[in-house]
């Protein structure tokens, strides 16, 4: 190894380390406000429920939220996540009374309030399905840094690429954690219990 290639290797490593540290810091700052600063990191939204009622993030203040973004034409990832959420609600038993699961569509064109309201009931009647105008959906997706993109399919309905994460929002409205869309109901319940025990 020449001095030059060694120098380059060291430099490369430094860049990687800085990148990882930067990403970590970014994630931390995105997730929760620093303690005691009282900074509000609420993620505002205005959306429409299955029964046509308009709700906002403030509607659910005081509850733990499990927020999942998806769409009803989704045959695999969304039913998996929604079922896990339904299972978590079951496992939480009486503690589930303080938890509100929200399923927010990223496909408002096809997912009308009626479609969303009907769809979520198949998993658990406690899950609320929310939709909105293109602008409202774009706004809430931006708040949660959810990526979504329409993809047309030959010979079938269009599909959506979308972020498949389950977000946990605390009763004050702060996003405190996110879990993989493939998490089991048991794992989601465990995370909620742990978070609840910290604050009570």
């Amino acid at each position: 190894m020449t001095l030059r290639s060694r120098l380059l290797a060291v430099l490369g490593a430094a860049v990687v380390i800085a990148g990882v540290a930067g990403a970590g810091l970014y994630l931390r700052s995105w997730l929760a406000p620093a303690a005691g600063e009282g900074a509000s990191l609420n993620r505002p939204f205005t959306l429409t429920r299955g029964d046509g009622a308009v709700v906002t993030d403030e509607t659910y203040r005081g509850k733990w939220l499990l927020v999942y973004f998806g769409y009803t034409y989704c045959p695999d990832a969304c039913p998996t996540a929604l079922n896990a959420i339904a299972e978590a609600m079951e496992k939480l038993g009486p503690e589930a009374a303080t938890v509100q699961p929200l399923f927010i569509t990223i496909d408002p064109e096809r997912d009308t309030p009626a479609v969303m309201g009907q769809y979520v009931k198949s998993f658990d009647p406690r899950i609320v399905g929310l939709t909105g105008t293109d602008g409202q959906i774009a706004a809430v997706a931006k708040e949660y840094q959810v990526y979504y993109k329409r993809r047309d399919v030959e010979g079938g309905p269009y599909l959506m690429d979308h972020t498949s994460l389950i977000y946990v929002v605390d009763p004050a409205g702060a996003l405190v954690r996110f879990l993989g869309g493939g998490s089991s109901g048991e794992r989601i319940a465990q995370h909620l219990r742990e978070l609840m025990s910290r604050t009570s």
Partner: protein
Amino acid sequence: MMRLIAGLALLFLTVLPALAQSGSPSTLEVKQVWARATPAGAKTGAIYLTVVNGTQSDDKILSASTSAASTAQLHTMIDDNGVMKMRELPSIEVKAGSTVMLKPGGMHVMLMGLTQPLKPGDSFPLTLQFEKGGKMELTVTVTKAGAMGVGDMGGMGNMPGMGNMPGHDMGSMGGHGTGGKQN
């Protein structure tokens, strides 16, 4: 003498191929064919299944069709840093001697334009077209909406015989480096 030779030739022509076929498990088998019950109003669904290629040659699922939907496509899910991207596959390869599982979060037969909702306990036909194995007619069993596997049908005594079946399957799938997708 001629008759003996002719007799021997006949033996080679008829018995030996039969022996070769009946020897080790040399069949292409599709099992645990299931779909989740679809949520109310859903227009799409997914079929999951396991292909065991016990033959000596690589094979491929080329296409799928069913009367339960207007379109059936071979799909896979790509988890791109938390973004789920569903993509159509031109075919699903099943190498000789390997087991490939289509399961939630991975590959599946995507159903579009369901003719009617899939209800737990229902069953419907599925045809898979293999490159070498030809057409295979199968029956899809519908499980509850959020099921993760064919054994996950709610209620323990639901499927008599399931108790020893999965163990059997695991034996041939697990850890033998069959080339099946394991994650």
